[in-house]
């Protein structure tokens, strides 16, 4: 019975029709016809916000007014209006976030990979042209990769520096890789370097140094999305060479960033400065910031609550973006005009 239902589902037969044919729906987890009648497929999320003013049986408005006048605005925002209020320990203010995502008209990015296909195609065309001319790639792109430790993820960001500083750099590639073996991570770094013909700045602390050495001694095969130790080529599981041209293998240019207390501080401070570059409190509508990004949910989650004591925080995307900003933008910023590097 289950096999027949699975076959029916694979053929695209609707669940209701499958029921009419006497196939039990429960086995394959297909929504029972009756259940469907009572309830459409449950959405994943719902959110609602609200303020104390909405409850006519709650705090008298006179008391709310007293709170508004007498209490600090941050406390009022939180206790009366339910706003998230980051305290002084947060490194990145919400103004910096607003600048980062300004101009993004698409929806939020919840997936683990995102690419600006137009820019990637431009980069591919440029790569092929320069290759045909025997010329080296131009430094239009920069990339940063924060490597996974025991429990977190490897995150790669690529920035398009075209027009900087007159126009902001743009995130054109984002990739998050979780709980994967190192060869997979090598391949993902190789892919980013290949697609955008750029060097990838990698965290070279501890195991990262070993990773960098491996990448120095490997080439990336775009046909099979793997890296191979030089001078080896792609082989299948039986050791038979696969059909790809060694001439197409790409070196993986890697830069090293050694994390320490002071270098990490500089890295994060640089990102905050880059995000706030040009901010004018008197003209908040004026464009500011040297990076624009799509609304990647994990960035939205991590940046507002990031603090210097970050051991217990999820910081993969923050570090990945920081490394990319360090690779391409660290000479572009002046004195900080917003936020505090002291938290």
């Amino acid at each position, binding site marked *: 019975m289950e096999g027949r239902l699975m076959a029916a589902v694979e053929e695209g037969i609707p669940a209701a029709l499958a029921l009419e044919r006497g196939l039990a729906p429960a086995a394959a987890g297909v929504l029972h016809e009756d259940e469907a009648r009572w309830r459409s497929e449950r959405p994943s999320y*719902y*959110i609602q916000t609200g303020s104390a*003013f909405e409850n006519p049986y709650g705090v008298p408005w006179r008391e709310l*007014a007293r709170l508004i*006048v007498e209490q600090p605005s941050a406390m009022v925002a939180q206790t*009366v209006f339910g706003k998230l209020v980051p305290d002084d320990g947060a490194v990145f203010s919400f103004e910096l976030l607003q600048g980062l995502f300004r101009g993004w008209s698409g*929806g939020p990015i919840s997936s683990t990979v995102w690419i600006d296909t137009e820019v990637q195609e431009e980069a591919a065309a440029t790569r092929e042209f320069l290759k045909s001319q025997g010329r080296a790639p131009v430094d239009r792109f920069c990339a940063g990769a924060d490597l996974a430790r025991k429990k977190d993820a490897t995150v790669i960001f690529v920035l398009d520096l075209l027009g900087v500083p007159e126009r902001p750099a743009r995130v054109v590639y984002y990739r998050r890789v979780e709980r994967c073996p190192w060869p997979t991570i090598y391949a993902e770094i190789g892919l980013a370097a290949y697609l955008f013909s750029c060097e990838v700045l990698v965290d070279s602390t501890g195991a990262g140094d070993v990773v960098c050495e491996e990448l120095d001694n490997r080439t990336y095969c775009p046909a099979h999305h793997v890296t191979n130790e030089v001078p080896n080529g792609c082989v299948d599981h039986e050791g038979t060479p696969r059909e790809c041209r060694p001439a197409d293998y790409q070196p993986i240019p890697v830069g090293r960033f050694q994390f320490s207390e002071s270098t990490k501080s500089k890295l994060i401070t640089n990102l905050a400065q880059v995000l706030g570059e040009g901010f004018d409190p008197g003209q908040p509508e004026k464009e500011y910031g040297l990076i624009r990004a799509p609304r990647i*949910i994990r960035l939205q*989650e991590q940046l507002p*609550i990031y603090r210097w004591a970050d051991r217990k925080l999820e910081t993969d995307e923050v570090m990945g973006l920081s490394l990319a900003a360090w690779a391409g933008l660290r000479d572009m910023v002046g004195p900080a005009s917003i936020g505090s590097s002291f938290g």
Partner: protein
Amino acid sequence: MGLIEDLQRGRHDPPFFSHRFCKRKLHDGQCEWMEKANATVNVLATGNRFGKTSVVTVGHAHSNIYKIGGEHRYADRDGVIDMEAMAALEYNTAHAAPSNELAKIVWQDFNRMRRASPDLDVWVEQMPRTEPYNITFIHDACWRIRTVGDDASSLDGRSNYLISVDEAGWLVKLEEMMDNVLLLRVADVRGRIWLVGTMKPGEVSKGFYKYAIRAAAGMGQDLAIEHVTTGKALARRKYPVDPSIYRYCAEHGIELDQLLDAVGAKVSVGWKAA
């Protein structure tokens, strides 16, 4: 309308159910929550004294009495309920909070409700005052009230059609609890999770904040839940209140200057009006 008609209406009209059987009139925000919070993960992130705990009590009462989410197991295609099947359906909900004091608020709230409403009281089989708090209904529904502890293990073991977590803004390990326990406890019965609370400053609410962001993204919305003190430069106001508060009031249709005038708010010495 008769009792049977009221019961029938109450299933699909939770605000009516609340008013008729719980003797509690929900405000608009609570009505909206009862009608729309039917996703797998539902986040209610509001200011204090919104009525979050109150609406959770009504939600559990409604879920248990009507065995919401289990209709396909006891009703036919025409909506006719098989009472024997409904009574036989094992139905569980759970409410949790960071501490016992917070968790038992809903027990106390429901106890007040049922004392005030005989039509609600008739559904309750027993609700002993001893811990752990359980409220058992006459048709084999059970509402458990627990503390979440460090890891929400107190909620493990049973499938639940509704799990609510109060004061979720205080739970530092909320994400772990969701991944390890709560999402699994509702998965097989396609139940709902209600995360209710107020955001706290710092990293305490990071899990709650993350779910708020994901929920907004899941609904295709941008969630402006941050407090921003800078913004469009405004003319100096009559009262020494940050322009952002004026903006939040405007979002709720409140003219703050008028409100403060009406309540006779005092202006600090040295503050010069516009």
